[in-house]
């Protein structure tokens, strides 16, 4: 058996990679995928803790996270499609109308 802390460290690693991914990708789709990566890293830690405490709450939470993430992806992709339709490019650095 691998110690459960390994799972948590893996989760932290995936989360960090996801974070960096959000910050370095210019394509909104790839940023979005990085966010999904972060979601799933968190899911892994939830399930690890659920296993540790043999508590189904963690599982329920992951389920809810997956559901909400699905909703979020639907909305997010719709927004990206709309942006793409009007701007004909997909570069977040070009979307800086709110510049101070």
């Amino acid at each position, binding site marked *: 058996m691998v110690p459960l802390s390994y799972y948590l460290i893996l989760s932290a690693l995936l989360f960090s990679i996801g974070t960096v991914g959000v910050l370095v990708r210019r394509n909104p789709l790839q940023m979005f995928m990085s966010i999904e990566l972060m979601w799933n890293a968190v899911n892994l830690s939830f399930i690890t803790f659920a296993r540790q405490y043999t508590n189904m709450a963690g599982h329920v939470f992951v389920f809810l996270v997956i559901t909400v993430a699905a909703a979020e992806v639907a909305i997010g992709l719709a927004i990206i499609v709309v942006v793409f339709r009007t701007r004909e490019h997909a570069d977040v*650095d070009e979307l800086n109308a709110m510049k101070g």
Partner: protein
Amino acid sequence: MQDAIGILLLPALGSLIAAVFGRALGRKATSYITVGAMAAAFLWTVSVVWRLLALPPAQRSFDPVYWQWIHAGALQVHFGLLIDPLSATFLLIVTGIGFLIHLYSIGYMEGDPNFQRFFSYLNLFALAMLLLVTADNFLFLLVGWGGVGVASYLLIGFWHTRPSAVTAARKALVLNVAGDVGIMLALFILVMTLGRVSYAGVFSHVSSLTSLQVELVAFLLYLGAAAKSAQFPLHVWLPDAMEGPTPVSALIHAATMVTAGVYLVARAYPIFHAAPVAAEWVAGIGAFTALFAATIAIVQNDIKRVIAYSTVSQLGYMFLAVGISAYAAGIFHLTMHAFFKALLFLGAGSVIHALSNEQDMRKMGGLKKYMPITYWTFLIGAAANAGVPLFSGFFSKDAILGQALASGHFWLWLVGVVAAFFSALYIFRLFFLVFHGKYRGDAHPHESPPVMTVPLVVLSIGALLGGYVAVPGAWNLFDQWLQPVFSRYPGGILPAAAAAPNWGAIALTSVIVLAAVYVAWRYFAGDVVREELPAALRPIHKVLYNKYYIDELGHAVFVWTVDRLAILADLFDRVVVDGIGMGMARLVWGWGEALSPYESGYIRRYGLAVLIGGVCVVAFLTLVQ
């Protein structure tokens, strides 16, 4: 008596319907609903009075409680109605005369584009007044009190396109609210000292107050009463309130609003009994106001203004009465006044209506032949107002003067008698100027429609015969009717009331009044208005015509003070308030300027900032702690 709340609900409903559905319902239906609400309220009141009369006098008091409004520690305020002969009298006046005025308004406001709004306001006014007179505690009295102030503001300023009307409405509201503050302060004292606001609770514990406290409460209550009832020097709003439509003037002057002060003093008689200084003050100011306003009324040329000052003068009589504890006499005069003053106002309104909104008496005259009904009913009203023997005003005014004399207030009596002379003079001057002589205007006078004359006739019957409920030396049904109210707590009944009438004094006032009528006839019944005055009288006329310069004085004193205060406030505003405000703004501005380069618009930069912040938090949590 649980059902007495219906009397309040009817005008409330009427007002609401007229306000919300008025446009949809149209003029006719709206007027039917609102006038019908008042009629129904009047009939309801009659049934209530009838049921009261069926009971033995000692049991004629009901205090149904409907719900609890405030429950704060020891302080508990319920919404309850107090139905006893005093409030029933006011209910009758408000609903009865109110109904007639509503009816009259249908004719008077015929062409007004905001007909429905007017009737909504009228019903609202009636509701507030009914709440005022039926509340069983000071707090709801204050609610009604404020409601009356608001409704009067709306009604006086009804023609809100006239700047003068708006100014008058604002003036009335400001002075009224000044009075409201007085009542509020009195209420605070009562809550602080007694912890209760209901009439029963306060009146049965008046003895536990120190004399200073009770004098203070009485003075503060009187401040409210004086503001609402236009006592010197707070009377200035009332003549200006003539800017409203004439039915409003009638409603405010005769039936409702201005009598609220008299009601308050009469209702709070245990307090005023325990505060002799305040009571003397009330009586003194009352007598002075009676004389003061009567003298002004003599020289005014605007028909409504004369009647307005007449009201102020008559209110002075009432305050004189309640100030010397002649409560029943005061209420008696109030009731009679309600009849004849409503009559006078509606008669004046009829004249104004007939002359296409002409209000200057110099352009009237000789209307007798054009408007017979108005003429005869107005004559009755004038006679009652003057106190011509055997008219209602005669009985009630003499009741007050007689009790003033019997209770040893000789100087007050004397002032009252002099004021009676002027009263007769000004009202018959008005009467002769308007109806006798030759017509001096250029309109086409005509008699008013029945919807306006019928209320006049009804009111003239009241003004003619109302006084016979209390014939000196024979019977006094009015005193008997009110006795249960004023015998509940000490101080309600003046010992002198039972004394035999002073026939000599009555005869004296009668002669004086008749003399005044003669003088008026002699000088004002002619075909032309005398413009020249004896040189000796000119300065006096000038002073009187300008109402003793009270407005100017008040203007000077208050405006000067307020101007100086405003300069100070302006300085404060600029330096301190603006300093803080602008300083904050500059601070925020500066921060914004300093930070705006970081609002790069690059979402990845923001994300990086979030990450750095998050890393710092995690570092703090894991490494420092």
